[in-house]
């Protein structure tokens, strides 16, 4: 599953922009992950601070 390290996240929204299934939503400082997430990991790759991780 996709995990968000909220201590790292700088809430820039880059992950939301690349998400192919529209599964992410940035609510001010809070990144929401919906059930649409396919765990493709594109968001983790783009994240400038490394706040996202797909864990087995």
């Amino acid at each position: 599953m996709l995990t968000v390290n909220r201590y790292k996240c700088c809430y820039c929204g880059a992950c939301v922009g690349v998400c192919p299934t529209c599964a992410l939503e940035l609510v001010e400082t809070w990144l929401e992950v919906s059930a649409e997430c396919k765990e493709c990991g594109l968001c983790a790759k783009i994240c400038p601070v490394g706040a996202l991780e797909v864990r087995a």
Partner: protein
Amino acid sequence: MKCDLVVVGGGPGGSMAAKTAAAAGLDVVMLEKRQEIGDPVRCAEGVSKRSLCKMVKLEPEWISSEVKGARLYAPDGKSIVMSEDKSGGEVGYVLERKVFDRGLAMLAAQAGARIMVKTRALSLLKKDGSICGVSAMRIGEPLQIEAPLVIGADGVESKVGRWAGIDTTLKLDDIESCAQFLVQDASIDDDYTEFFLGNSIAPSGYAWSFPKGEKLANIGLGMQGSRSKPGEAVRLLRQFMKSRFPNGRVVEMVVGGDPCSGPIDSAIADGVMLVGDAAHQTDPLTGGGILNAMQAGAIAGEVAAKAISEGDVSRKGLQEYETRWRADIGKTIARSFQLKEFFVKLTDKDINQLIGSLAKEDISKMDLGAMLRILFRLNPKLLWSLKSLII
């Protein structure tokens, strides 16, 4: 509640759209999901002085500093200098976005637009298949806003386009992963924006120093998304700081994703127009997007007023926006995209050769086009595939 136009997003594009449409007589509501407009910043804050002055009456507090020009560093350390009014648009003023964005929102408010902060669009309202407003959450409470027309100025994380059937998802090749520190350091050049090229500094991107006065600068970098890995932008920025500004004191941290896809296929749908980062209207070569968003916002605001008064908010009725933004900023965006696609493939050796070849030329008074022509004359073999763009 009801209105003529909902603008989703209170950045420079949204505020210009709201201001223009409200000034033309529309009842406009602008939504900003954050509780403050302009903060946190996701931007290096550089703009062309000339273009900005054409669009709005400037307030002195919007501007952090004015620069004389740009200095471009090759990976081997050699540099060239370009003058302020010629270096391709994104140099001149370094803004204070927190104040600037709020200032533009105030212009929209003064023109009559209603602004709702801490109000997030959740979806588009539809009736018989047509868009008829926005479903939102305002300070945790549901709110329905009925309106025949919606402008999506909701940034890199835009949803409005996707809700309306426009696929604005960015491929990793088409987004730069960026990190920036606001740095205090005695070695900062207060008079020049600086660009540092090199694949070990910022792979298929560049690092920058945009001075904000009194030895303070936005120092950051952007790298191509497809070459990124988790946390890479910040790691590379720390590395760059260590080698270039080892004594720098970091007083703020900024990160972001910058679209560099070139013009999208369509920025309109029935009842919807997209503006700014939401429409990928950033310049793919420089990453600059403030002025393009403002220009597109102003055009969208005018077209909105016309479409509402004529009672046609269909795709056809909004076609004027599409035509006008492409004729205005779209041409440069398309050209910059082709240049970017070429430049991201260059090795450090190629970049050294290109910048080195200009050492004996006086380029201080040249614009980007003239500089590219000289580069082509001096490096025909390397730049041959750009022939049609340059000559």
